[in-house]
């Protein structure tokens, strides 16, 4: 990603996951092969990375902060 202001690789992956797993062109119907494992992979990746809040807790303060730190 160009000119990105992210601080860690994991947060980058989290942001990518938010997009590539949830958004983008979703084709419905028979033309797309259904891969049973993929839903499990989604779940696995999501659990692995959980959420922004978990990331924040685990990694200290990876975000660009402004003012005082929330407590």
């Amino acid at each position, binding site marked *: 990603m160009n000119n990105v202001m992210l601080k860690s690789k994991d947060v980058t992956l989290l942001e990518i996951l938010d997009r590539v797993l949830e958004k983008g062109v979703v084709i419905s119907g028979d033309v797309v*092969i259904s891969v049973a494992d993929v839903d499990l992979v989604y779940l696995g990746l999501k659990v692995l990375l959980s959420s922004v809040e978990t990331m924040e807790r685990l990694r200290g303060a990876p*975000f660009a902060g*402004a003012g005082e730190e*929330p407590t």
Partner: protein
Amino acid sequence: MKIYAYGVIDSNCRIEDSSKGIEGGRIYNIPYRDIGIAVSDLDGRYQKNINPDHVLEHERVAEKLMESFAVLPMRFFTIFKDKEEILSMMSEYYDSFNENLNRLRGKLEFGLKVIWSGDVIKKRIAENNAGKGQSKLLSNGSPARNYIMEKFEKYKMNRQFEKEGHRDISAIDEFFSGFAVEKKLDTLKSDKLLLTASYLVEKAKQDDFKQAFERLKKSGPDGLKYLFSGPWPPYNFINLTKPEFKKA
């Protein structure tokens, strides 16, 4: 051999870039009328090997495409049986793809997540409310009345919490008004996550947009943390209409 799709692009020409995609497959374009879809071939092993690296590869290809074309990135792991299936899909969705490509051409997506101390704010609101006669009402009322009052107090506190949240969200969003052509704001998803925003920005205005973020960091609402990311392909701004069933 299956076909993995990365994104629909506004070109029916050959992709000159020699970069590789998922499992090292060469990226190529399958043209349909005046548009195309960037793909790579995939063998049968993929089902056992899906991992975060594949996600990164998918995104890397989408970003590479974004440098040369208007691109509608596919959702991760969109796989087709063969070229005929892809052409059939392109034919069905052509009008919608075209509309989206025209709307999104020359534009980029930026993301912003904002973390706040929602739990601390909730605590402060509860403490303030406790000092405003709530306890008196509760001690004098019947159990039913107390129950209703308790519910009402909770409702008021939630309202106050949301009001404070939306006040900060408006202040944040204000920094970007004028630089984004479209936006999507997902608000108060949890006590900590105040805002998940996606902004669609013209390429020519991306530096202005980044400067707006710098200003937000310096003079935005107090006590917030920001995660700013981009530029991304416009994942959040694809409005695909499912094609109507075509009679044979």
